């Protein structure tokens, strides 16, 4: 139990939380309200006039095959990023957990990519994979893969998935490593005496015991892929070719700032907001209570 602090003055506690509340209201509630409001209006490109249209912006969205495709793209993108980033991070964490010599420097190196800004990560991969000057693209072409993400939508999607996953590996790695280190060594030893092969030990003991970490990371990674990858996509594929990498967040931007359809852009933001809220509830419900094995 935490000690409860009792204030003598009624004013002081409110004063203490006021800055946080002010920041939240100004930078979160107000824009959110603005988005919610403008999603019910049709506005001209220069903001001179607007007209109440009710749910029209929403109904149009769900009638738009492009928007529905964006949903699908986002889902594929999010799940792929989460799976790729988590499985690679887990493999690295398992390896790092076994390293005895120079363990700290090895771990530090693995954490570095997390310090790279998303846009920069995108640019790095953009150069590596660029069909005319990228080294990886060159290798791929030598290996007989005709790599050109400017033309091939699937390849473009693969590129942003790899770039987004690469950046998230470090974060996942840290959590998996911490999770692995909290598993008592004697459990693994007991399993070894119980004739389990290293492979069985991992899948029957280690992995189930990592469930809380895995679930937490799954939510975090999905949130990351859905909402924090705008800069990366903007710096590499700009949503293209032909919307192939246009995930929901990117679409909000392109509809609003490129297409200048503010109403529709606002409606899309509101839908994303609902998604964030839903995922947060899931996280609070299950992660905060901890997945019990």
């Amino acid at each position, binding site marked *: 139990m935490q000690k409860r602090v009792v204030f003598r003055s009624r004013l002081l506690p409110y004063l203490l939380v006021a800055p946080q509340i002010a920041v939240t209201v100004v930078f979160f509630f107000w824009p959110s309200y603005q988005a919610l409001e403008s999603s019910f209006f049709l506005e001209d490109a220069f903001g001179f006039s607007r007209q109440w249209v009710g749910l029209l912006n929403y109904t149009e969205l769900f009638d738009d095959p492009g928007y529905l495709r964006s949903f699908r793209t986002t889902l594929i993108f999010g799940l792929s990023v989460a799976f790729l980033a988590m499985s690679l991070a887990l493999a690295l964490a398992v390896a790092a957990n076994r390293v005895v010599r120079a363990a700290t420097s090895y771990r530090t190196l693995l954490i570095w990519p997390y310090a790279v800004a998303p846009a920069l990560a995108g640019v790095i991969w953009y150069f590596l994979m660029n069909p005319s000057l990228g080294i990886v693209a060159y290798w791929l072409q030598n290996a007989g893969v005709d790599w050109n993400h400017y033309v091939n939508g699937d390849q473009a999607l693969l590129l942003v998935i790899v770039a987004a996953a690469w950046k998230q590996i470090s974060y996942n790695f840290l959590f998996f490593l911490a999770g692995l280190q909290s598993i*008592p060594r*004697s*459990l693994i*030893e*007991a*399993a*070894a*005496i*119980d*004739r*389990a092969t290293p492979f*069985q030990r991992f899948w*029957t*003991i280690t992995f*189930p*015991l990592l*469930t809380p970490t895995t679930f937490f990371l799954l939510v975090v990674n999905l949130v990351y892929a859905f909402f924090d990858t705008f800069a990366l996509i903007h710096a590499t594929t700009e949503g293209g070719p032909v919307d192939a990498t246009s995930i929901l967040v990117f679409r909000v931007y392109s509809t609003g700032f490129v297409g200048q359809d503010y109403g529709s852009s606002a409606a899309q933001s509101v839908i994303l907001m609902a998604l964030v809220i839903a995922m947060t509830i899931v996280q609070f419900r299950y992660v905060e209570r901890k997945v019990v*094995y």
Partner: protein
Amino acid sequence: MAELSITGLGKTYPGGVQAVEGVTAEIADGEFIVLVGPSGCGKSTILRMIAGLETITTGDLLIGDRRVNNLEPGDRDIAMVFQNYALYPHMTVRKNMEYGLKNEGLPRSEIDARIAEATRTLRLEDYLDRKPRQLSGGQRQRVAMGRAIVRDPKVFLFDEPLSNLDAKLRTQLRAELKALHKRLGATFVYVTHDQVEAMSLADRIIIMNAGRVEQIGLPMDLYLRPATRFVAEFIGSPAMNFVEGTVDPDRRSLAVNGSHSLRFAEPLPAEPGHKIALGIRPEHLTEVPAGALSMELEVDFIEQLGADTVVHGKLAGANSPLAVRLHGVQAGAAGSVVTLGCEMDNLHLFDLGTGQRLN
């Protein structure tokens, strides 16, 4: 079931730390062997080498007639009970016990039969579907034993299995463990730092110090004829008293730091001029100044234990601490002087330098 043969076993960690050195022991089939010693003496390392959890640097380890130095833990036909139980927290009691059997690829009927048998032995029937965290310490300990029993191994290894339990439960489980050993008739190797546990459980005790074996023997051998001063000090509670001094030319007295000396009725079995440590157990000192030796104790404080009274003080005229265990409830005041006696047979003489027994 099998005998265990340990020859010249040694463990050196990378970095040069020598945890265990030249340990040799023959453990008979069905014997209950206790490895005992202070923390860091290498007893757990030996157990882990037998289990295959630590590599063996030097020496040979045979289970039955098979050299197992380089076998995986799972292939050595052993089972181990860990100090923290090491139950798989995400599995029920039943699944915990099944795990090893499934890995061995036993048929379902055999697995069920073995689990039924073990649960009956350990009275775990009501807990089979519970997770380890829903069990008390004692129950977890039983499950850990159950997991070992169902494997039907040649050798059971125990790594301080009772040290996380409270005193009462420890006594109870000690008795259960002894009974279990009798019923299974298997070879038990048991590590503990608790000499009471060692004395009460063991057929034979291996007592270790700083990576080496000090003495291997029956519990009563260790108590009555400790081979070294270390063993003498380690076994028995309160610990043995030591008076250090030089044997006089007539061998009938011991010069204790200069002026004071102890007189003996018979000559000491040590060379004149030899520096020795004279050991006497607190329970072998009597209030009757009879026997081979009489000495005076200056009382510092008294511990009333009910059945016994332990009087702590100093040897009068010298500075050696001295304790005596008297039967029943005894009164006494700090500062008073008590005259004590001891039989010749109960004297232990050790070389002051090497700590080896002289008589």
